[in-house]
């Protein structure tokens, strides 16, 4: 395999003079490569655990973890935990999205609101919001409300800031031409500014969703109350390592699924945008 430096992902750009067999080999490597890494890692994991190179409680065999996931699946435990965690994360995300986008647009339109929120945002954005958890527990109790609000609070800053930046960056010419064509201010906001800002707002939402997941899991670990975070931490406390690994795999899969759904939604919502049309 030639280590030909190459930027960009085109497979067609084989170095001149490469034989036909060489380019076939290259194509095969492209196809097989990804599975090679994951497969060999899985096999190494299984072997390391089976041959007891690593203590079983530190690294349970991959097959054992898979068994555990199936077991959880059939007892209904998995669906229950996932349901609770997702319910919390999605409620938090919806609250943060609606509140954040509204506030972001208000900030970019009304000077007084901008003046008031600007320092709060610049301090609040880099701050680790989870630190306020004890106060959220005190105010909203130990159940769903405090977990959901904590996650919504943590994620909303990012959404407000990106929405603000996005609506500020809308080209003036677009607004001017809509206005000269006789659109009312409300129509301009809804039909022009909001749409032109959409790609960047969606990027903000795509950053905020994982934040919601992270915070919901952390609150579950700290406060308990079922969900994937709680069952994982309980497994860790009882040194039930297959349980911990099963939890990581499950959370990873959920995270992957949620991100994919966000990408599909983005492509749907931006079907008219050049970013989507370029892909096709």
């Amino acid at each position, binding site marked *: 395999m030639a280590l030909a430096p190459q930027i960009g992902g085109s497979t067609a750009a084989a170095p001149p003079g490469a034989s036909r067999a060489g380019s076939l080999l290259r194509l095969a490597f492209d196809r097989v490569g990804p599975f090679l890494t994951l497969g060999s890692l899985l096999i190494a994991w299984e072997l390391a655990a089976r041959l007891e190179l690593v203590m079983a409680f530190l690294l349970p065999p991959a097959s054992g973890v898979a068994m555990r996931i199936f077991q959880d699946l059939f007892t209904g435990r998995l669906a229950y935990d996932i349901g609770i965690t997702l319910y919390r994360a999605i409620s938090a995300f919806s609250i943060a999205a609606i509140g954040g986008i509204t506030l972001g647009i208000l900030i970019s339109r009304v000077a007084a609101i901008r003046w008031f929120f600007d320092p709060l945002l610049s301090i609040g954005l880099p701050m680790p919001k989870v*630190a306020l958890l004890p106060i959220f*527990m005190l105010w909203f109790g130990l159940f769903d409300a405090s977990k959901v609000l904590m996650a919504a609070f943590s994620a909303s800053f990012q959404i407000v800031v990106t929405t603000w930046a996005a609506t500020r960056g809308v080209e003036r010419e677009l607004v001017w031409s809509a206005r000269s064509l006789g659109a009312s201010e409300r129509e301009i906001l809804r039909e022009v500014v909001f749409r032109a800002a959409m790609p960047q707002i969606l990027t903000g939402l795509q950053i905020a969703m994982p934040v919601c997941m992270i915070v919901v899991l952390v609150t579950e*670990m700290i406060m308990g109350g079922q969900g994937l975070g709680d069952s994982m931490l309980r497994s860790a406390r009882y040194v039930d390592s297959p349980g911990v690994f099963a939890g990581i795999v499950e959370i990873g899969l959920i995270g992957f699924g949620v991100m994919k759904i966000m990408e599909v939604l983005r492509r749907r919502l931006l079907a008219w945008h050049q970013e989507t049309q370029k892909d096709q």
Partner: protein
Amino acid sequence: MIATLWRFTPLLILAIVWEAATWMGLISEFALPRFSNVVASLGTLVQELAYQAGRSMLRGGVGFLGAVVVGVLAGVLMAWYRPVRILVDPLMRCLYPMPKSALIPLTIMWIGLGDASKMTLIFIGCLLPIVLSSYNAARGVDKVLLWSARGMGATEREVLWEIAVPASLPEILSGIRISLALSFILMVSAEMIIANNGIGYLISVLGEGGDYSGMFAGVITISAIGFFADRCFVMLMNRALAWRE
């Protein structure tokens, strides 16, 4: 000077409203400590806060710096060498969307309760966003730049370090900035879940013990540190990118 003061007046207003609301009894002192008490706690706890924040910063700093070095290197190599890209890409694709807090129980189990487990957590958590942004940045470098450098006789290594890396620096740095904020979140939450020192530990102990003014003092300390870390990074970023335009 006056402009800066005017900019931060809203914070002053908030502080006054907070103090007035608790002073007039609109909000019970059990739900929200008085602002003046929080300031007093900041004064009395100053040594404790400095010590615990120092412990936290040590953990966060080691994990974060490790992630920056390894992440940028991995991202650039992935963009530059095909085999690396093909082999590492699926791994990154699987791990990137995982909410990083899922790793807290694992690092506890593997590495224990001490500093090393938090450093590892912060390292892994910050690594993937940095790898991804450096990979995207190095992949998106203007090809004309590379061609002209090669045309002028630069070796591949020179093209990589003299052209591709500087050209992708802006995007790499903004990826690192996102990771910086993430490192604070991970640090505080890991310390709140399990630790025997550090600012997150202090906050949760004071909060659970009902000393809310002390807890707020902790929150204010860590927020201030986060704010200044972010500001310093932005200053560094502007300096590093001063050659642009």
